[in-house]
């Protein structure tokens, strides 16, 4: 199936969901690591209930950028952001923002599946319990719903109390997505979610994302152009810290405006 999908890149048409309203607007955002100017003057919209892919060669700043959208870069002492990321009228980058609350609305899934070494159900219930939900039935219902959303329910329903670290890599990653869904966020950020997985698991995750975009706004970093072409409605091409080009996936892949975009897409570098 994956191979088939890859062959379809050039004929890929995904225009049904374009021109959704803008949920997050990035305005002239700069990110520094100490003196290193890692992301330069980025302006781009993120459209509601669609998939936006960030592509580009390693070190182009795409991961740095996505980690700024829910302020995960706060963990790095030398990181510093300037500019504005507008979300429901507030600037995400403002020091006044309650990052803990922000992250319940803008969730994140990482490259390496990182389930907690606890049981499968505890993995999903941990954020719920922190949010003050202690009703056992609610917890069970949400667990079941989230696991069904990611297509993991049938595989794990008989061993919910077993450790999540016993799952396969692909299952772990779907559990991490289910965990991020538990709090019903608006936006899900995924930082190369399939790069540590085998092709079959990757394809499952891609299908899942296409399902999820009906209800969620999805931003995904990927080094895999075919993946962006397969699932994204919008694609942003980053190169050397700059946003070279942003557009609908169809336009970007079929009629790129900049030469470096077409060079990258055609595999001439990166």
């Amino acid at each position, binding site marked *: 199936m994956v191979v088939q999908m890859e062959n379809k890149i050039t004929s890929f048409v995904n225009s049904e969901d374009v021109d959704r309203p803008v949920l997050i607007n990035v305005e002239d955002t700069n990110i520094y690591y100490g003196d290193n100017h890692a992301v330069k003057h980025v302006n781009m919209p993120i459209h509601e209930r669609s998939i936006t892919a960030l592509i580009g060669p390693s070190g182009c700043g795409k991961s740095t950028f996505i980690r700024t959208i829910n302020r995960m870069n706060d*963990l790095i002492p030398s990181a510093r952001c300037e500019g504005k990321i507008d979300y429901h009228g507030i600037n995400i980058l403002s020091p006044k923002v309650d990052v803990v609350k922000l992250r319940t609305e803008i*969730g*994140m899934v990482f490259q390496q599946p990182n389930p907690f*070494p606890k049981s499968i159900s505890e993995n999903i219930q*941990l954020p719920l319990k*922190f949010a003050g939900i202690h009703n056992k039935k609610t917890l069970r219902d949400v667990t079941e719903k989230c696991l069904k959303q990611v297509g993991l329910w049938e595989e794990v329903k008989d061993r919910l109390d077993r*450790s999540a670290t*016993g799952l396969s890599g692909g299952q772990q990653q779907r559990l*991490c997505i289910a965990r*991020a869904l538990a709090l019903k966020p608006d936006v899900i950020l995924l930082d190369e979610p399939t790069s540590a997985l085998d092709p079959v698991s990757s394809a499952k995750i891609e299908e899942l994302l296409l399902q999820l975009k009906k209800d969620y706004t999805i931003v995904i970093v990927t080094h895999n152009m075919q993946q962006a072409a397969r699932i994204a409605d919008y694609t942003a091409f980053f190169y050397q810290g700059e946003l070279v080009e942003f557009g609908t996936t169809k336009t970007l892949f079929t009629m790129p405006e900049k030469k470096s975009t077409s060079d990258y897409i055609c595999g001439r570098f990166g």
Partner: protein
Amino acid sequence: MNSKVTNRIALSLIVLCAVIMVSTLAALLGYILVKGLTNISWHFLTSESSAFMAGGGIKDQLWNSFYVLIITMILTIPIGTSGGIYLAEYARPGKLTSFIRSCVEVLASLPSIVVGMFGMLIFVNYFGFKFSVLSGALALTVFNLPVIVRVTEDGFRALPLHQKEGGLALGLTHWHTIKTILLPEAFPSILTGIILSAGRVFGESAALLFTAGMSTPNLDFTNWNPASPNSPLNLFRSAETLSVHIWAVNTSGIIPDIQAVANGSSAVLVICVLMFNLLARAVGKMINQKLSGR
């Protein structure tokens, strides 16, 4: 000289060092156990020590060793783990942090006799705790605190960053992430470190000579009221521990069976410390297996 020969020489040197180390340890343990085990009997473990006559036991000393250890751990574990968590998770790199860290290192490398003198001046004299369980435990706290801080900090630093990111990305606060995700994961290594340090505290003598004292009142093991002067639980009575007892018997004892008592006590001490080490391994392994879900 070709590389094969160099390889052989390096290997034989390493093996030689390992053999020297293992045989020293085996000889030492063997000597202590062979000499001591014959002196250990139920009577020896459960009777009071005698000042003049032969046939005294180590009941009180054994109890004191465990009691001082428990009090020390009650004092050290909360402070030490909190300090370690602070250094690993909250302290921002800077002058203050590196100052705190070097303080911990200096504290860890203080000779225990110096800690004992300090304990005597501060706890025994200044605070007026006299030679007591409490003074001894406080001195051992000074001695043990840096170890626990270090063990905790290392335990947290060894955790993969993506676990912390996972917690924070789910909208948990930093503290809640530490409490529910990082601490349980670091727990096996912290616990192993704590048990190993317990072995060290258990065998410590120099820091206790001038703080817990070299005598024990006649303990009444039926009286568990901590306020009564001859209760085993009394914090303000003097308490000669097992290792101090070995030293005291050897240097100033006037009992006729000095050799037997010293050998027997040493064997008991070594067996206890060995048990702490084995326990640390077993518990660490058990929790690890439980956590990884096998």
